[in-house]
């Protein structure tokens, strides 16, 4: 097979090439390959255990692939620690909401601005005026993002006191605060009711219109079909289909993979 | 140096190394059992060894019981203390984090040590050797018969534990709890009981090591810390969580210490094992038989 690793077309944001992930004896991902054009919402769907979260973990550097490469905006990501991938412009949310306890909503979002602050430990310790100025700037920026997701009025509440739907929004806000080029959302609508899901849906579209690419994992088919530009289907760790929502809906292999699984809210 | 003398000394150091290495191996095995089931490093592990020796002294020398009876009673007593440790120090913590639990084991080791000092004082104690003290000649060097007992204990521990974990239901249940406590609970295994059992086993093994060691090297109330940390060094050397690694690591560590003390400096004897530990952490933290993937599953 020709080495296509460097077939990186400059207009691609993300290119995942031939990726394998093996845990012990279990193959979680096999020969996974796809590209992400800038400014679109690409959804990854598949039955439980298909490897969707694993794929996300590989892209963000939490797991090292056993084979294959990941290229993001010209950087190879396969050997990069997770904090570095964030610094390079990939942000993410988690299936089991990982917001920070014992911190307020706005503080959570301010953490997202961490790498856009430049004061070192010494200046922080001495509390130079520039530290105070920077804190204020970050606070303002955090409020901007909170307003974007509609949580501006809950900014000073303790993050864990919010209902689940809003906690997930805080996580999204936090992810957006890092000013990413790509944001990966891991089941943002899981466990949410109808109206909260609609809210999330609108916000994700709004994110796209702001020029940030979105990689979305979800089980809610209506949400997926509603807002996705492209869909990729995984089953048993392998890509079985890729295309527009209409193409996917009519794909016999996809339908077969989902036989027995309820299409809709999982 | 004379060729023959050189080899004699070398063999002697090797024998000493393997002997003390067996003790470290037993401590290491005990560490791993608790670690595998709970993810806690039991910093009181060394105290079990000390108790094994001292309680045996109390029963056999002070009370004059028959050695075999004293032996069984000692194992049971120390085993009981191990279970107490779990019940009083570990189970009682309401919001357990691995950090807090390690601190609890530190507290427990201090309590045991302090109590031991109260009961036995600061003097070292001796036990009659199990089969006398006539040295056996071997390749120009001397083996104390007690050393053979210590090897024997190690082999006994290895064999019994392997049988236990592979052949008995209880052993398999423990392995299951170690692998995946949530799944184990779902299958009906009482994980708390498994934890209790792991402490009991570790204590018993530690006691065994102490009973074997005392006739050769005496025992005093404060040896626990040093034995504990060397046992831990053995664990890391062999790979955290690995049973064969613990045995291998223990023996290897004993050799390192013995050779270091013999050829380099005896004043720094204790330091060799520790320096080995630090070097290992820099170069290959997963140890000889360990698994790098385990290191990445950080919950502490």
């Amino acid at each position, binding site marked *: 097979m020709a080495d296509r690793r460097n077939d990186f077309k400059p207009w691609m944001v993300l290119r995942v090439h031939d990726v394998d992930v093996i845990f012990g004896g279990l193959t979680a991902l096999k020969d996974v390959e796809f590209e992400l054009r800038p400014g679109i919402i690409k959804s990854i769907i598949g039955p439980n255990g298909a490897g969707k979260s694993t794929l996300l973990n590989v892209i963000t550097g939490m797991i090292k692939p056993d084979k294959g490469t990941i290229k993001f905006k010209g950087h190879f990501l396969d050997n990069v620690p997770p904090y*570095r991938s964030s*610094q390079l412009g990939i942000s993410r949310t*988690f299936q089991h909401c990982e917001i*920070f306890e014992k911190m307020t909503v706005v503080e959570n979002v*301010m953490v997202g601005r961490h790498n856009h602050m430049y004061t070192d430990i010494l200046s*922080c310790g001495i509390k130079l005026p520039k530290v105070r100025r920077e804190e204020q700037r970050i606070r303002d920026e955090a409020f901007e993002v909170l307003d974007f997701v509609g949580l501006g009025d809950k900014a000073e509440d303790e993050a864990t006191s919010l209902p689940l739907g809003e906690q997930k929004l805080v996580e999204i806000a936090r992810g957006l605060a890092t000013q990413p080029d790509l944001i990966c959302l891991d089941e943002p609508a899981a466990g949410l009711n109808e109206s909260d899901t609609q809210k999330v849906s609108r916000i994700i579209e709004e994110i796209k219109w702001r020029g940030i690419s979105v990689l979305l994992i979800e089980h809610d088919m209506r949400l997926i079909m509603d807002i996705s530009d492209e869909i990729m289907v995984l089953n048993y760790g392998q890509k079985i289909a890729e295309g527009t929502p209409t193409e996917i809906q009519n794909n016999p292999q996809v339908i077969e993979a989902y036989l027995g699984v309820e299409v809709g809210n999982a | 140096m004379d060729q023959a003398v050189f080899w004699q000394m070398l063999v002697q150091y090797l024998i000493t190394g393997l002997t003390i290495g067996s003790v470290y191996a037993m401590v290491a095995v005990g560490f791993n059992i608790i670690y595998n089931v709970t993810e806690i490093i039991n910093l009181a592990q060394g105290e079990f060894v000390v108790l094994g020796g001292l309680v045996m002294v109390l029963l056999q020398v002070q009370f004059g019981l028959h050695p075999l009876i004293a032996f069984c009673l000692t194992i049971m007593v120390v085993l009981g203390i191990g279970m107490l440790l779990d019940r009083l120090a570990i189970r009682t*913590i309401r919001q357990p984090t691995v950090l807090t639990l390690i601190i609890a084991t530190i507290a427990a080791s*201090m309590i045991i040590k302090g109590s031991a000092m109260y009961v036995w004082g600061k003097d070292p104690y001796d036990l009659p050797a199990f089969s006398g003290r006539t040295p056996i000649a071997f390749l120009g060097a001397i083996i104390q018969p007690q050393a053979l007992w210590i090897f024997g204990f190690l082999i006994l521990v290895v064999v019994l534990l392997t049988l236990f974990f592979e052949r008995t239901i209880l052993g398999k249940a423990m392995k299951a709890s170690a692998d995946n406590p949530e799944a184990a609970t779902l299958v009906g295994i009482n994980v708390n009981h498994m934890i209790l059992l792991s402490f009991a086993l570790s204590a018993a093994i530690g006691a065994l090591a102490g009973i074997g060691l005392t006739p050769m090297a005496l025992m005093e109330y404060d040896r626990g810390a040093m034995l504990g940390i060397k046992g831990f060094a053995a664990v890391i050397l062999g790979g955290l969580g690995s049973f064969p690694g613990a045995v291998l690591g223990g023996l290897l560590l004993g050799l390192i210490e013995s050779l270091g003390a013999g050829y380099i400096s005896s004043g720094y004897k204790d330091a060799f094992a520790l*320096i080995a530990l630090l070097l290992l952490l820099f170069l290959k*933290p997963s140890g000889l038989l360990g698994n790098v993937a385990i290191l990445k599953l950080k919950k502490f």
Partner: protein
Amino acid sequence: MLVMLLVPWVLKLVPGVSHYLDILVFAGIYTLATIGLSMLMGYAGQISLGHAAFFGIGAYVSGILTVRYGWNPWFCMFVGVIVCVIVSFLIGTPCLKLQGHYLAMATLAFGIIVFIVFSEEIEMTGGPDGMGGIPGLSLFGFKFNSVLSYYYLVWGVVTIAFLFSVNVIQSRIGRALRALHSSETGANAMGINVSGYKLQIFVYSAVLASVAGSFYAHYINFVSPGSFDVHFSIKLLIMIVVGGMYSIWGAVWGSILIAFLSLEWLEMFKEFEVLAYGVILLLVTIFLPNGLVGLPAQVMGWVEKRKK
């Protein structure tokens, strides 16, 4: 909170129990050593079982360089700090990328190795009998030669360190630390180099311990290995746990309490010190997980529950 820091000054006006002042100097030295360690435990969630080594290195470097070579004590303190920075960096870098057990055991091992070196290198350190004749400190000609002057000096430095630490905690770095303490995964996803920050805090704690050790050497003019053994490392740990891990005030209160306990109230129980501390540590761990600092909140919570 910052205002309360002026209280130590007021205390000196009470002449009644004059030797309490001496104890408070030790308390100040201990506080200096534990502030950083408290941040390491409370925020980075790591445990160092060998901090006595950094303390001891500071003490011995100060002692040896001033006694044998007559160097300026402040410069020697600086040298001690440099040594500790290098060592803590070397130990921390591999360990802080791994599970916390590794740092715990590495520091324990390191602590014991340093203790053995102190005891064995008799020519340099005076061995187990220790080394005396360490000069007191002086600044711009003013000689610190009374308990009172040391009191002000030590607590002055403690105040500076305390304020510096508070500023760090309230800054973005403190936020990053709180974030990584709550969820390392989340923090990593935010671009925070978790291992890097843990390392910074570890080195910081080593620096403070080193400075504290230097002050210790100059205050009592004598050092011996016995003061820097595992038992002392554990004592530092106890100060933090008893005072409260999750707030640096815990380091202050814990140090003061343990200083009084060990130097005054438990004097008669010298034999059972180990047992007593073990019991205290265990009881606090079980019943008072947030230490003394968390006591008011805990009592309030208890009262609230009883009301229902």
